[in-house]
């Protein structure tokens, strides 16, 4: 890397030698991400981080003037791993705009499809992508000392998962060769079959429509799903304790590991799984039906639940620029000046955004990415909060636990934890799991939450099958409500993509799309420094992260940085760049004077 790409801001660190290192592309994620850092090897710390994305496609631009009924088909193509989350969110936004309420059976079918998506996606990501960062090959390469300790450490839950030591778990995670790696890949297929039963195809579904679904409910449909679900439930009874053992071991083997990827608790969740008994897709009652969702929406700041209202969440959305390759839209058209309840809608809200791309050279002192900076305006403090999603599960479990609203028997939110009951399966009895609010928002807890949310989704799916069967047995098998596309309308959809918050904002004029802006989780997590200079969550979480890797600059893998970034489950369905430089030394700094010189550079 040349100095042309250097970040210009100072470090303020008492650095012995600060080395510029970058990883481009970051692999084992979806999409295109580059992480550019300055690392102080003397104090073993990351002093600065910039994240960049290298692909632009322009959905908001080419969707203008299209038939709004096409938008879920089109927006599914935003993402190749959770496209169905987009299609679903778009259907939610369209339902609101058209004033249509699908029959309950359609909602249970969508919930079953989306639950299968969480089960699949977290499964493949956790153990085929993230898991490799914890596998024998990797740990031996980055921390031989930890590997030695893993061989001596018995796994506390060996009886549940069958691996005697932590080292055995690590070996089972080796790519392709590892037994658990291959088993997980196979489970990711079983769950995708469940998905295809409900939504037709993975990853861009064929059977979703505004007003309902095309899937034909039958005993066969739900039996085919249920039988597979029970296999996954049995699998989860091994997987959750396995991950608890693995992650707890890292805290024990590397004291201080809780600081890796730690940032302030600033979490957002937009809620998932509609309750058809309550949800009517009317904006004016959105707070009520939002709170009835089977994953509770909410915003958590420093451990406190600020709101669970989708109205508050919606009104507070702000899309900032600062370091992104776009022209500002402050002077462009205002599409929505107030919401249907009379709340003022800001010019920086997605309903009013106009996307004007401006390709240019990458400059880490100026514009360096195609990602914008979504923020949530906290009216209590006037802050534009750089919320993250904790990779999805951490925020979902945290808001749901604190809100204490979900209680469906198999899942129960207690106010400080979430209890999950997995029913008896072929070889294992009923098991109760409890996810407790952790002390930190860090890499390990993001990963741990993922495994618990796999169980959460499975337990919800079990409940949804029961509800769907009840509809079927009562003969209520309609899956579609007809509608008309109005000439003028607005709509918004809130959902949880696998890796976190997802919103779609739609404006219809003359029966066509006048404006459409989807906000998936990764723009929140991968956002760059905004106009106020606030770094995005990846940047923030990587900055100041201590490094536990045993390698020096020459053979440095950046494993602790990788674990931090991957804990967010990055999904920049664009191009990702991560590149490990040759460890070029920027400055040898020995005195405060020299340090000041570095800061000005």
């Amino acid at each position, binding site marked *: 890397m040349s100095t*042309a790409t250097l970040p210009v801001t100072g470090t303020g660190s008492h650095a012995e030698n600060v080395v510029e290192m970058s990883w481009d592309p970051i692999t084992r994620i979806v999409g295109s991400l580059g992480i550019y850092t300055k690392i102080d090897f003397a104090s073993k710390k990351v002093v600065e981080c910039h994240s960049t994305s290298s692909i632009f496609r322009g959905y908001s631009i080419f969707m203008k003037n299209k038939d709004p009924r096409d938008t879920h088909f089109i927006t599914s193509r935003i993402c*190749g791993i959770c496209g169905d989350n987009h299609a679903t969110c778009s259907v939610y936004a369209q339902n609101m705009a058209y004033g249509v309420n699908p029959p309950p059976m359609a909602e249970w079918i969508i919930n079953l499809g989306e639950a299968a998506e969480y089960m699949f996606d977290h499964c493949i990501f956790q153990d085929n992508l993230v898991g490799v960062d914890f596998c024998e090959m990797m740990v031996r390469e980055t921390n031989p000392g930890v590997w030695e300790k893993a061989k001596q450490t018995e796994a506390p839950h060996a009886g549940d998962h069958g691996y005697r030591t932590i080292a055995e778990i690590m070996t089972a995670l080796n790519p392709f060769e590892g037994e658990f790696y291959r088993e997980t890949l196979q489970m990711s297929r079983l769950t995708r079959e469940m998905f295809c039963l409900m939504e037709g195809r993975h990853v861009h579904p064929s*059977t979703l429509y505004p007003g309902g679904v095309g899937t034909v409910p039958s005993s066969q449909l739900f039996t085919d799903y249920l039988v597979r679900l029970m296999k996954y439930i049995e699998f989860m009874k091994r997987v959750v304790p396995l991950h608890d053992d693995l992650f707890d071991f890292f805290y024990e083997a590397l004291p201080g590991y809780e600081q890796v990827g730690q940032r302030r608790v600033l979490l957002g969740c937009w809620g998932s799984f509609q309750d058809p008994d309550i949800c009517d897709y009317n904006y004016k009652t959105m707070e009520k039906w939002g709170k009835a969702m089977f994953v509770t929406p909410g915003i958590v700041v420093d451990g406190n639940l600020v709101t669970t209202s989708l109205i508050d969440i919606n009104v507070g959305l702000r899309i900032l620029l600062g370091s992104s390759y776009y022209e500002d839209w402050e002077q462009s058209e205002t599409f929505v000046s107030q919401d249907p309840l009379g709340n003022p809608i800001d010019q920086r809200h997605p309903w009013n955004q106009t996307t004007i791309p401006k390709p240019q050279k990458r400059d880490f002192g100026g514009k360096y990415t195609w990602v914008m900076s979504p923020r949530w305006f906290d009216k209590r403090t006037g802050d534009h909060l750089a919320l993250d999603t904790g990779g999805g599960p951490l925020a979902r479990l945290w808001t749901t636990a604190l809100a204490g609203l979900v209680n469906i028997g198999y899942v129960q939110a207690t106010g400080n934890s979430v209890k999950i009951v997995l029913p008896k399966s072929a070889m294992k009895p009923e098991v109760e799991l409890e996810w407790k609010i952790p002390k930190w928002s860090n890499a390990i807890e993001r990963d741990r939450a993922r495994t618990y949310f796999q169980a959460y989704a499975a337990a919800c799916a079990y409940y949804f099958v029961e509800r769907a069967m009840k509809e079927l047995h009562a003969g209520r098998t309609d899956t579609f409500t007809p509608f008309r596309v109005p000439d003028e309308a607005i709509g918004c959809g809130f959902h949880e993509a696998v890796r976190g918050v997802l919103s779609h904002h739609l404006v219809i004029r003359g029966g066509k799309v006048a404006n459409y802006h989807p906000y998936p989780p990764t723009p929140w997590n991968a956002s760059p420094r905004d106009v106020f200079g606030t770094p995005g969550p990846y940047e923030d979480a990587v900055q100041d992260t201590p490094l536990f890797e045993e390698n020096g600059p020459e053979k440095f893998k*950046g494993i602790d940085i990788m674990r931090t970034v991957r804990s967010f489950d990055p999904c920049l369905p664009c191009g990702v760049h991560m590149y490990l430089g040759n460890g070029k030394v920027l400055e040898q700094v020995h005195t405060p004077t020299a340090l000041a010189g570095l800061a000005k550079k």
Partner: protein
Amino acid sequence: MAVAPVAIAAHRPPDVKEIHLVWMTTGLGCDGDSVSTTAATLPSIEDVVMGAIPGLPKVHVHNPVLAYEVGDDFMKYWYLAAEGKLDPFVLVLEGSVPNEKIKKEGYWAAMGTDSRTGQPITTNEWIDRLAPKAAAVVCAGTCATYGGIHAMEGNPTGAMGLADYLGWKWHSKLGLPIVNVPGCPVQPDNMMETLLYLLYQVAGLAPMIPLDDQLRPTWLFGKTVHEGCDRGGYYEEGVFAHEYGQPECLVKIGCWGPVVDCNVTKRGWMDGIGGCPNVGGICIACTMPGFPDKFMPFMDPPPGSMVSSNISRIVGGIIRSLRAITHHAANKEPSWRHSRPQLTTGYRPKHYAD
């Protein structure tokens, strides 16, 4: 035939001992084709990587979604391939090719950083470097094959398919045309099966891959969606769904199946499960070169479907009423199955009590 017969593979060792799959996901895409490929079981990615398929050389897969390596460690294969030191390799492209010539600076799609300038290396430059060195070039999904969603009217990037970029007459150094496996995303087994064929071909164990004029494997794309659809029978009898969620033929509510080249209705999505019109999803023609613009608005009936479905309604109505008579008869058991004390089956017993 998709795979070389085992007997041939056993008798003849491959021409090469090792082969690399260099898989670029940095077109304008969504990585959905890589993800889809991990769903394949016939064969699965691990079947190919771990040598479960007879006759194959050792296969090394370099795909960013699955790679162990990160950053430079990962990019080194790209540089080796560009220098001709990773021979032979099959280049897979995922995502459409943007037009980088339409603006004065910056990039639409890129991968890796140029060490001299500090700027990203565009996807197009990688294609220019790698395509001449590749044994075969495969486009995974409709974006890479024909442009797809990101090449929709009104798009800001000037996106196109690879054959538009390299030329439809382009051939690899081994004389193979570009191989297109369309689908949005690609059907999992269609992708792995095509790759397997090409691995055999590059290893000298299979003849030239048969392709149609849109460069698609003929055995996968030689039939229409409608020809494989289990709802096609409704069409024959002129019975159509008028709302989504009904189990009949979907052509009157937006299905393009009768004119779309795709095997999803025959093959399902995964191990025979799922699909499109066969499970209630209108065919939006996602495998076609004209996708998406020529088929939008997706939820309107295709213009040609009015005439053909009305004819089918009349003719099919007659067929249906005639069939109803036969159907009724077929649903009745023969008259000799009864509990009366006589045998009326036609058998004449000699030794029954009388």
